[in-house]
């Protein structure tokens, strides 16, 4: 869970797909100490179920604003992978009142685009059996209609409005469990944010749906297909999970992405972006009373929705090692993962400690055994991958220094994991690790956006941000025995998946 380590960023990159450019804001998953959050967080709930968390910080007249919807790729049905992330792209296309010259006129054409696009997809999905003349006609028709629609729309208005009023860090991320929209603004501009965000939570317009599909295909090419590490991670997850949706990439499988469906995306939006499935988090130079007036005025009218019972297939217990190989023209790398429970299970907290013992800083065990010895260029561990609403994985990843092999790294890693099972961690080492976890939390909440991100994450994933304030006590309880027991129970060969990138000969 904790620190700012290089590889964690790579893992997070995979978990969280950013929308604008290639920036990834890392949601750090660590709770807080020595900084009394309990009294600083003010919590409100509107009648429609919308949750609001506010922390005042007056160092500068700026504010960080998060909107987090408790949904993500796990809520997609098979065949529709990539919808949650694509919806996030669509949310930047404007609303009925933002981004249009005349919505009545525009709507007429958008309806025709909707019909033509669906008809074209219905034909194309037949594959070789598709009627070539029909698809050509539909394609042309769609192109003409899109040009026509372009006459009525004003592209990129949301971005323009925010940018012009001094907005920064405008970004959105879709993960397996959580979708967040974030912006930082000068603190006098909160009403602009409320105006835009409440409007897009009510009536977004999915303009440029079909050309944006091409953009996400490009995003996949850029971030997965030209990136051997990410590709390996994709293969790894698909092997580690047989049944649970965590097996699927957030970005979607390419064949599904080609047919991302406008109606399905709209329905996904209507259901999961409901106010009763959403938390707003605000940290910065604000007065809670003033902000609540604005929030109530703009968001209070959005109707709540019935959130369906989520039917997510539980992952069957793994009963033997799984191995995957990816052959690619790239340097070797290795990923090893073990199934484990998620928050707020005590074992998850034990794994935070194990995580830091293994890779927190230069004196961590794996760093010393692999990087200091010059056999790995980097090594990292991550607790809680690729999501945290459901049981997840503890992941170790490393890249060998040539001519050392992934096999050697595996052996060295297993050796360290075995020590965890057999020898109690020395009290000084345990204390060091707890100190590190505490300090990492302080670092991550030192910025407004860091604190806002953390509050909204825990609110969404555990049901209450207060998990953060309970974490210190949990951490203190983690004992030498707990570590040995958890290592023994979860870090065993039949519970693991190993993925290896092998260079093409």
């Amino acid at each position: 869970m904790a620190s700012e380590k290089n590889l964690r960023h790579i893992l997070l990159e995979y978990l969280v797909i950013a929308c604008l450019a290639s920036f990834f804001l890392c949601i750090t998953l660590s709770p807080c100490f020595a900084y009394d959050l309990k009294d600083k967080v003010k919590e409100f709930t509107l009648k429609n179920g919308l949750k609001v968390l506010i922390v005042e910080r007056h160092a500068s007249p700026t504010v960080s604003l998060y909107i987090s919807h408790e949904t993500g790729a796990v809520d997609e049905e098979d065949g529709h992978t990539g919808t949650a992330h694509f919806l996030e792209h669509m949310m930047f296309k404007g609303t009925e009142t933002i981004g249009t010259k005349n919505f009545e006129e525009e709507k007429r054409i958008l309806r025709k685009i909707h019909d033509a696009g669906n008809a074209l997809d219905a034909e194309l999905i037949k594959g070789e059996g598709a009627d070539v003349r029909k698809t050509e006609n539909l394609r042309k028709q769609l192109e003409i209609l899109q040009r026509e629609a372009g006459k009525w729309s004003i592209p990129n208005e949301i971005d323009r409005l925010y940018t012009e009023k001094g907005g920064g860090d405008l970004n959105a991320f879709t993960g397996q469990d959580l979708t967040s929209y974030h912006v930082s603004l000068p603190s006098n501009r909160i009403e602009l944010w409320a105006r835009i965000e409440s409007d897009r939570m009510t009536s977004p317009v999915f303009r440029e749906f079909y050309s944006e599909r091409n953009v996400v295909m490009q995003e996949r090419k850029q971030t997965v297909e030209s990136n051997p590490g990410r590709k390996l991670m994709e293969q790894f997850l698909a092997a580690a999970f047989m049944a649970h949706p965590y097996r699927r990439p957030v970005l979607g499988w390419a064949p599904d992405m080609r047919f991302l469906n406008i109606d399905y995306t709209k329905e996904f939006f209507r259901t999961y972006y409901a106010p009763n499935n959403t938390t707003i988090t605000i940290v910065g130079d604000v007065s809670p009373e003033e902000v609540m007036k604005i929030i109530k005025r703009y968001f209070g009218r959005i109707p709540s929705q019935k959130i369906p019972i989520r039917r997510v297939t539980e992952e069957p217990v793994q009963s033997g090692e799984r191995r995957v190989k990816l052959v690619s023209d790239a340097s070797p790398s290795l990923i090893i993962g073990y199934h484990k429970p998620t928050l707020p299970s005590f074992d998850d907290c034990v794994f935070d400690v194990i995580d830091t013992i293994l890779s927190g800083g230069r004196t961590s065990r794996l760093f010393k055994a692999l990087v200091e010895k010059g056999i790995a260029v980097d090594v990292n561990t991550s607790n809680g991958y690729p999501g945290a609403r459901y049981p997840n994985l503890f992941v170790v990843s490393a890249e060998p220094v040539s001519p050392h092999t992934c096999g050697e790294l595996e052996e060295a890693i297993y050796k360290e994991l075995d020590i965890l099972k057999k020898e109690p961690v020395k009290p000084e080492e345990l204390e060091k690790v707890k100190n590190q976890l505490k300090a990492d939390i302080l670092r991550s909440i030192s910025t407004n956006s860091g604190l806002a991100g953390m509050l909204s994450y825990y609110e969404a994933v555990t049901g209450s941000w207060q998990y953060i304030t309970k974490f210190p006590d949990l951490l203190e309880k983690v004992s030498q025995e707990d570590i040995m027991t958890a290592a023994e129970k979860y870090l065993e060969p039949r519970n693991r998946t190993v993925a290896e990138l092998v260079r093409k000969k």
Partner: protein
Amino acid sequence: MKRYIVYAAVFIVFLSSCAWHGASVTDPDDIVYAPLRFEPPKAQRVKLENGIILYMLEDHEIPLVNISAVIRMGSFYDPPGKEGLAEITGTVLRTGGTKSMTSSQIDEELDFIAGKITVSVGTDSCTLSMSILEKDIDKGLQIFFDILTNPVFSEEKMETAKVLKIEALERISDNPQKIAFREFRRLMYHGDPRGKLSSVESIGKIERDDLVKFYKRFFRPRSVMIALSGDIEEKDAVRKLKNSLGKWDISGGPGKPPPPPIRVGSSLTYIHKDTPQSVIIIGQPAPGKKSPDYYAFEILDFITGSGGFRSRIFAEVRNRMGLAYSAGSFYSPRTEYGIFGAYAMAKDSSTVDALSAITKILDNVKDRGVESGGELAWAKESIVNNFIFSFATPNRIVTRQMMLEFDGLPDNFLKKYKDNIEMVGLDDLRYVAARYLSGESRIVLVLGNKEKFSKPLSSFGDFYMEKNSTENREN
């Protein structure tokens, strides 16, 4: 907590009767905002007797202290044939132990108090930074200054650093963007030390003695500036610094490196790599921060490609044409010189289309400047409104102020920045566009697999010379 929940309930009742009518029809452009009044705190500047300059700002929100020392040293000074020496020196400065502590003692002590010390080496500066809990400040500072003033560069740690750096260099060939941007740097700084990059061979030649000499040449009090912010009293901080660093007394130090020669001529470079997505980068020399053209060029870059979704390259290449996920421009101004670049990561088959689209945008800007006052107003408003974030945290304020002095910029640079941006007019944009975006000083770099391009690169125009280059070419 209860109190606030009750509070919220009151608002719900009160506002639901009168609210949302107005809300749904307000044009977002018509929202009226209260003025923003803010006088950013100014960092204190202290000069120690030995020449070290300190900038300091208190911040008691979180019990942490941040300190960074910037030193005039960097890859610019790498001796020919030993490119990478500055970087390895920086790495081993941190990992190689000191006169009083071994490498592992330092790591153990720091990790125990959860302190973090990192080094980063740039072209003409090296930064040693630490983040430490307030309660451990004394221990932290002792280690930090020990590393800064008494490093011993152990042979063993240097060997590890070299092995890791060589592996990292070899792994660059896995990453199309890294290959392309490295080559871009070489091309932009051709004939200047800034264009000389480390290679497996040059790293291999580095010896411990090189590190020691390099350190001695650059690490001198007069070449060091320190920024300190966080949960510590100002006079405490100054006293601690005087105690630890006051005795460090060696005079001299390097002068500022001269700017690179102005590159003339244009070229087209093709790098072969079988990848589904091509990398396109176009570069031009641009004004530095001291140039009177700086402000106009900031705006020009914003409009051309760095101002988000609305900027021209993004809107055209990503939005309208759907050819790329990442496309835009960047402008990196240094004090005396700068670089402007435009880029796109495009689908292999549409490489030449994306390249033509970007070139067309640049040519259009060069020939006509920016014709719409609306676009200029949008760029100015965006830049000016966002400027407040330069002062978002005390750490940012203090670091910025220190870097102004380090870079030789006037200390009212930030204060005047907004006014200078406001003063830019359409004429200024036309002038800088014509001056800096000329096709005659434009380099074009394309990485990808030519065979998959739907149009040949030559269709892009025979104006440019084409040269081939292999992916792992060194220097």
